[in-house]
């Protein structure tokens, strides 16, 4: 055997440790405040990194969104947590055409990049075309959209089909406007031959309130105030350090004052956090759901409609909510409660053990035994899928269904999920943009529907409703349509929405202006200091 890499000498620890640690006690004290004197304030944010790049045209990960929100400005944006109404960004106003296919934006005058040059309509066209041409993670945001410069201060976006979601898509930091001249000088182009990523990972080229000082996808990202920024936000911190720290250590760090904000603590971890820290909890917009494969070749049990009903009614949702902690809610449909088109809470499925058992008996499935596949190392807003899976397994056992857990590391299980090979799957959907049209992916024959073996044409009523909802303009009409779709899905579909976990942000008492936003988690430029 190889020599094990474990062990201790408890006896020696007191002697050596005491001396060594006593020496370090002084420095531990001074670094605890995390900010330097003389008006130059540093903010330390701890989060568990999901970060690949700082290039807005390529990034589409949660941590990347936090970073690029501070470095780049978008045409439209959201105010604080409110994602129901897009507000002015680099564009001071916009108009939508009656058929929903054309969006005209008027640029704000006087906006400047971090190198002092003005933000022009050409920069906007370049940036958006670049996102489309790079064919990276965020390109789908502008699928079917053509960007043109109408005049020096107007941009027109024309979509192939009615695109009512577009004003809600534009605030995404991946659509941040970059300095086209600087980028082109460093290998950038609005085509697949672009090679500016290396440059953008060291220096930012945006008009946002911060500039990039250092960037490491493993350890930390450092942002400093942009002296040339003349936008609406008033950043209070001159230096922001975003560190990659795992959740349990985040808790220790923020409690000891080593960091000022911790983003990924679970409800269990924030219970009993005191010491003058503020805890902001609210339901996240991530929906964790169960899928039952409708492909009879994968499982004869899960493809049976009565079996699905048995599972749907056999889950004790309240018990799952107590597992996830206060602040979490049970979504009534796949659209999260904070979005337009969400079903009211009164329509959420209730736990009905007797009904579940009856449905199981009616299904005629002789050996109700299924495998539950999920990613063993995935946590959604601090809630471990593993814990949920174990709880679900125990609950379904009461109904009479034997569930065998089959976890695998994310990379392996993703394969099974995306190829529709799981019998029972436990996954989550994080909204790509805060609009109900994102959830059309759950319909038969669409992206997520296929993963549950729900092929196109499986339910013509739903397909027709989906097509209509995608092209309808007007909030109330859309809301009505999406609610109808979800009601039908709850009756005949293979998806069981389980829970929206609570999102907890823990911050030091001195930090103000904290607001959770489902698109970029937190806007560090909006934070203030007492």
């Amino acid at each position, binding site marked *: 055997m*190889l*020599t*094990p*890499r*474990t*062990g*201790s*000498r*408890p*006896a*020696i*620890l007191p002697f*050596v440790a005491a001396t*060594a*640690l006593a020496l*370090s006690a002084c*420095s*531990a*004290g001074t*670094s605890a405040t*995390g*900010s330097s004197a003389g008006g130059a304030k*540093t903010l*330390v944010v701890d989060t568990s990194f999901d970060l*690949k*790049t700082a290039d807005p045209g*390529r990034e*589409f990960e949660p941590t990347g969104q936090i970073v690029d929100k501070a470095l780049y400005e978008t045409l439209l944006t959201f105010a604080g947590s409110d994602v129901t109404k897009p507000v002015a960004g680099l564009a001071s106003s916009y108009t939508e055409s009656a058929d929903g296919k054309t969006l005209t934006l008027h640029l704000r005058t006087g906006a400047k990049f971090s190198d002092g040059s003005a933000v022009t309509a050409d920069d906007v066209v370049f940036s958006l075309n670049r996102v489309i041409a790079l*064919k*990276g*993670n*965020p390109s*789908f945001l502008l699928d079917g959209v053509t960007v043109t410069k109408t005049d020096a201060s107007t941009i027109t976006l024309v979509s192939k089909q009615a695109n009512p979601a577009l004003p809600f898509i534009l605030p995404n930091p991946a659509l941040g406007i970059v300095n086209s001249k600087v980028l082109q000088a460093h290998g950038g182009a609005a085509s*697949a031959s672009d090679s500016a*990523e*290396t440059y953008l990972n060291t220096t930012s080229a945006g008009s946002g309130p911060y500039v990039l000082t*250092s960037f490491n*996808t*493993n*350890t*930390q990202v450092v942002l400093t105030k942009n002296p040339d920024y003349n936008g609406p936000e008033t950043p209070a911190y001159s*230096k922001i*350090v975003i*560190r*990659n*720290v795992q959740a349990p*250590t985040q808790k*220790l*760090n923020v409690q*000891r004052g*080593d960091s000022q904000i911790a983003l990924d603590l679970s409800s269990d971890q924030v219970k009993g956090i005191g010491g003058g820290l503020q805890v902001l909890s609210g339901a996240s917009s991530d929906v964790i759901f169960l899928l039952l494969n409708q492909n009879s070749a994968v499982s004869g049990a899960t493809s049976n409609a009565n079996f699905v009903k048995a599972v749907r009614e056999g889950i004790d949702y309240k018990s799952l909510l107590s597992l996830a902690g206060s602040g979490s809610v049970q979504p009534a449909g796949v659209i999260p409660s904070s979005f337009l088109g969400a079903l009211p809470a009164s329509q959420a499925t209730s736990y009905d053990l007797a009904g579940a058992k009856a449905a199981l008996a009616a299904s005629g499935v002789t050996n109700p035994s299924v495998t539950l596949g999920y990613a063993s190392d995935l946590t959604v807003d601090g809630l471990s899928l593993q814990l949920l899976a174990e709880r679900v397994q125990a609950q379904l056992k009461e109904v009479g269904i034997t569930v065998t857990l089959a976890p695998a*590391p*994310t*990379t*392996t299980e*993703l*394969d099974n999920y*995306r190829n529709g090979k799981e019998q029972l799957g436990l996954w989550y959907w994080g909204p*790509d943009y805060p609009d109900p049209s994102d959830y059309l992916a759950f319909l038969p024959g669409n*992206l997520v529907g296929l993963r549950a073996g729900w092929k196109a044409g499986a339910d013509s009523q739903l397909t027709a409703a989906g097509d209509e909802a995608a092209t309808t303009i007007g909030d109330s009409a859309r809301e009505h349509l999406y609610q109808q779709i979800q009601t039908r899905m709850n009756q005949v579909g293979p998806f069981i929405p389980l829970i929206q976990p609570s999102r907890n942000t823990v911050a030091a008492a001195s930090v103000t202006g904290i607001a959770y936003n489902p698109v970029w988690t937190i806007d560090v430029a909006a934070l203030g200091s007492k």
Partner: protein
Amino acid sequence: MSRRWVPSSGAGGRLRPSARGHHPLARFLARRAATAVLLALGVTLVTFALTNLVPGDPAAANLGQRAIGDPAIVAQFRHQYGLDKPLPAQYLTYLGNLLHGDLGESQQSHQPVLDDLDAVVPATLELAGAAIVPSLLIGVAFGVIAALRRNRFTDQVLRLFSLLGVSVPTFWLALLAYYLFFYRLGWAPGSGRISPDLTAPRHITGLYTVDAALTGQWPVFWSAVTHLILPALVLTAYTVGLLTRFTRSAVLEVLDQDFVRAARAKGLPSRTVLFQYVLRAASVPIITVAGLAFGNLLSGTVLVESIFAWPGLGAYAYRSATTLDLPAVMGVGLVVGLVYVTVNLIVDVLYGVIDPRVRAQ
């Protein structure tokens, strides 16, 4: 009776007089270099084969939930990382690039793997170095004391502690240490290599302590040192246990030998006997295990690194393997293989330097 079975000289012919008397060291090194290259090749081949056996698609691991549904984006990704070529071609391309010093680009960090390694290897090196130095000093000292006081109370106590040392799970100890000394007592600083409000020193060696000292940034130096203490202590705990045990048995073995008794009989003072006779003879096995312990430290710190958020090789290896970042995995495999070979080489050379019997062959 098989002619094949003849009592051979064993161990590669050490007892046969050397036919080539000139430049034995050069030949030795050349032979070892050749072995190293073959080993490195073997490691890359095995890593490549194994990572491609895994039923996971790197595209699936790296592209978002929407992007994966678009065939054009997936094709673009696969083309960018050369995944659309047949496997043997991919391997050969990798080898070709390797000869130019190009280890490919990490799919996770979008940076050259060499740059990534340049950042993480010194971090683990610093940690391993900070652990091996006190381990050697304390472990050897304790082992010698235990051997000299054989079977007496001191010996029993030291043996108990060293056994405890090699028995405790590192991940558990790291957890306890972090919780107790950072959280509860506040004696140790938090996670990472330096405090967040300080900037890392200019990259000369990659070792924050050395770089900060070389550039005269004393607050940074101090911060780096204090951040090293706790994780290094946790790693030291095991290594000290190991070294104590090994030193004790090595010294005991030497103490039994005739030349030691002869030295004592000659009337030499105990200190001379100890340092010039006993330790000299025992140093060979001690160096062997020290070298291998150091090699282990370099390649096996993932548990400690994850708890202390130490951006070292272990954490990098874990992230690369779980995200199927193939170029990064190959890079890590190469580094660890090289570490193993280098450590073995140094140990063997030291062996030759200290023990004249080996040199005579």
